[in-house]
């Protein structure tokens, strides 16, 4: 405001006061700050990653030699199903979109918060509740046990009589609500909350990747929810969606599931692409090669992902023409994937790469992604696919993609943004050691799986005979699993020690290209004292703009310190449209989540009346949520 001739310090003071969070635990329970929500996501997903990791180690321990009996067949079924569900729905998706996306996207686009801060908190609390819900099922012996894809008739009532599948269907729907809310929020945030001047062609590629993942989730999750609703109704109400004897179809489940399931795979991996495209320019000190192509390729991967689902179903007896169509569509994914691989590699080759830990993880990621990708293309050859279907070859392929390509960049990203979040530098040497242990461990873990798969070892078996020639490979895999676990332990030990003992990092230790490095580390509640000036996709490298920001702060332009004020831009051009007041610190997201959790618990045990009462309470809490409008807050 031009009329208020205040010095810069006073404006910053006023911002500090305006954005002050509530103190203590209450501050965390009612928080709507995207950074706090991101950290809550981070710690929760880390806990669930630990659970999923223990499940993986249990499986590998069981399979260390033939005819082992650490786990019973029933326990093994639950453990591998829980491992899959946990890692996909409760680790990678919430870790990428929830933790990285929440913390970083508003910072990268020069915003002070998400478009809908309370909805953001709601998506976290629902995610937490759905995780607890799933593990309550597991702890009471009702863990899902029909694999992460839960095919009927195995998952139908006669073959799975206890509550396992109720926990499965309801946990996935519950979790899906959280992911849908988060996706809608990310999309609107990236459409509307960008700093004025950040037109769509100046959006960092990291954000394009998260945009692609969010759109993917928004359109893929409904198919999973529909499927889970049908299965739940079949089991609890007596409908016949998957009951062949009464006109149902078991293939219906598979079509809907994979219509969700394949885009889901790309949703897992695309944020990793985004992290890679954030790290590579910082550590090569050059702009990313082919920025527009990479941005489009990120979106295209997910878009094509919606047309390939039946390649999971080549052995179920589809017509040949269908199979050929889906094989061809699958081969098409190579194009956007290759564009990106070439862009990453060329950026590194033509830049000045500094192989610090984050870039090491990205280099490892490219190796793992190409490896898993090439074996993925092999499945396009239908006879080959039919041969290795349901063998360990498939397990090896998708673990190279999911662990190698999706999780490596997550680890790299943890190192890369650690200084931003904590204000401390991590220790480089242990960081590099952790990378090499994880890299060797994962390859030792997953590469022999290709071999045992080709030797015919089926997936999802709790043990195997000793005379098949699989034992040595399985031993190697188990050693690899423990080595990987050791590497991950070194990684986190390094981060924990660095948090307490690390040297201060300053705002921008890597000379990063994007706006999160333009503010202090850790960022203040309001992120930026001045809404940043943006005139390219590498905003933090535009020194003139950063000087302009300092002048603006002195003159009080775009400081917006009158309240939780935020500029809103037009979707494509990033023109300055309006200033809105954002809501903040609300208890309603938590209250709504508690009511919703009771609804889901009651649905598990079939108490529809109580569930209805709590559904009404959910509506009432929504009423309370909207009772105070932003301008009254």
């Amino acid at each position, binding site marked *: 405001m031009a009329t208020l001739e205040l010095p810069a310090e006073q404006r910053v003071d006023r911002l500090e006061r305006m954005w002050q969070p509530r103190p203590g635990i209450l501050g965390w329970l009612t928080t709507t700050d995207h950074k706090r929500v991101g950290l809550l996501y981070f710690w929760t997903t880390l806990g669930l990653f630990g659970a999923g990791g223990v499940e993986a180690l249990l499986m590998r321990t069981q399979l260390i030699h033939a005819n082992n009996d650490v786990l019973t067949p029933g326990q093994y079924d639950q453990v591998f199903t829980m491992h899959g569900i946990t890692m996909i729905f409760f680790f990678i998706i919430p870790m990428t979109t929830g933790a990285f996306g929440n913390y970083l996207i508003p910072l990268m686009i020069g915003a002070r918060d998400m478009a809908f801060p309370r909805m953001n908190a709601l998506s976290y609390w629902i995610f937490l509740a759905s995780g607890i819900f799933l593990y309550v099922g597991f702890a009471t012996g009702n863990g899902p046990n029909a694999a992460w894809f839960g095919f009927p008739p195995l998952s139908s009532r006669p073959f799975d009589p206890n509550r396992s599948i109720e926990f499965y269907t309801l946990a996935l729907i519950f979790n899906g609500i959280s992911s849908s809310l988060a996706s809608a929020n990310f999309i609107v945030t990236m459409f509307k909350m960008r700093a004025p001047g950040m037109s769509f062609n100046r959006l960092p590629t990291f954000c394009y990747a998260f945009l692609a993942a969010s759109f993917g989730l928004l359109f893929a999750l*409904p198919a999973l929810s529909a499927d889970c609703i049908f299965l739940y109704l079949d089991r609890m109400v007596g409908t016949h969606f998957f009951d062949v004897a009464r006109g149902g179809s078991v293939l219906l489940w598979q079509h809907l599931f994979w219509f969700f399931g394949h885009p889901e795979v790309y949703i897992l991996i695309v944020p990793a692409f985004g992290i890679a495209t954030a790290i590579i320019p910082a550590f090569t000190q050059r702009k990313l090669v082919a920025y527009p192509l990479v941005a489009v390729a990120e979106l295209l991967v997910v878009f094509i992902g919606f047309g390939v689902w039946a390649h999971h179903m080549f052995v179920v007896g589809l017509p040949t023409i269908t199979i050929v169509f889906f094989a061809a569509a699958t081969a098409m994914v190579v194009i956007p994937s290759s564009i990106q691989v070439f862009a990453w590699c060329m950026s590194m080759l033509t830049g000045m790469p500094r192989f610090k830990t984050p870039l090491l993880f990205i280099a490892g990621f490219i190796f793992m992604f190409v490896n898993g990708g090439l074996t993925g293309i092999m499945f396009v050859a239908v006879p080959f696919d039919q041969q290795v279907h349901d063998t360990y070859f498939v397990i090896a392929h998708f673990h190279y993609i999911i662990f190698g390509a999706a999780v490596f960049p997550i680890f790299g990203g943890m190192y890369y943004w650690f200084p931003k979040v904590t204000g401390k530098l991590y220790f480089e040497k242990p960081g590099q050691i952790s990378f090499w242990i994880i890299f060797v461990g994962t390859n030792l873990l997953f590469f022999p799986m290709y071999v045992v798969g080709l030797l015919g070892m089926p997936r999802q078996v709790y043990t195997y005979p000793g005379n098949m020639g699989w034992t040595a490979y399985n031993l190697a895999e188990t050693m690899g699993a423990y080595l990987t676990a050791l590497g991950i332990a070194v990684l986190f030990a390094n981060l924990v020690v660095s948090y307490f003992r690390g040297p201060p990092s300053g705002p921008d230790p890597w000379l990063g290209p994007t706006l999160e490095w333009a503010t202090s580390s850790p960022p203040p509640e309001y992120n930026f004292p001045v809404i940043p000036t943006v005139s390219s996709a590498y905003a933090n490298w535009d020194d003139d703009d950063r000087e302009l920001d300092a002048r603006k702060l002195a003159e009080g332009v775009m400081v917006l310190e009158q309240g939780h004020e935020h500029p809103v831009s037009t979707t494509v051009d990033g023109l300055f449209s309006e200033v*809105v007041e954002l809501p903040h610190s609300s208890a309603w997201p938590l209250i709504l989540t508690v009511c919703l959790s009771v609804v889901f618990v009651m649905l598990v045990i079939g108490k529809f009346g109580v569930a209805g009462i709590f559904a009404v309470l959910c509506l009432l809490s929504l009423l309370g949520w909207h009772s105070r409008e932003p301008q009254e807050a």
Partner: protein
Amino acid sequence: MGDYVFGGRREPEAPRTTEARGPEEVARAAARRLGLPSSWWAIAMLVATEGTLMGCFVATYYYLRIRAPEWPPPGIPEPRVVVPLVLAAVLAATSVPMQLASVAARAGRLAAARRFVLAALLVQAGYFAYEMVDFHDQLQQFQPSTDAYGSIYYTLLGADHAHVFVGLLLDVWLLAKLVRGLTTYRLNATVAVTWYWHFVNVLTLVVIGTLTSAAVI
């Protein structure tokens, strides 16, 4: 000051929309903003994901149907055609008063906006009441547990009715808000509820069209 121009607009020139008080000020602020508000995009996202969910239900209907030797299966009466379609068309017509309510609210004509929402609400509530009775009557003839036809028939119909019901709740809530004056927040809410109803109306036409198709083709 003059140096800092963002897309042809300096900071003090952008409307502080959530600060607007009273119909005239709200209308003026809304006219000065350059794009659609975040709330419009949010409802678009809801429609996208809900539309996909209902699309999966409709796809399931046809998937089961093309695999069935007879549709509806023997022993189950063919669905009525004329009355449900006419009623769906009547419901769809409420898109007109809802849109008019949005236009009126945006122009700051609060009383007109309230009247249009109320008019739409009455028709929508009438539709919902009839459909509830009809739903109950149909359950006497065959159930979701009869066979797969019954399962998808009632799931599809019930899901559509649930969307109508949520729309009614939104209408009532919106009216209660509009009675106490107009703010930018309430203007955005009116537009959002209007778009929700456009979606539900199209959805109802699709769902009723799908369900009645068993008797036609």
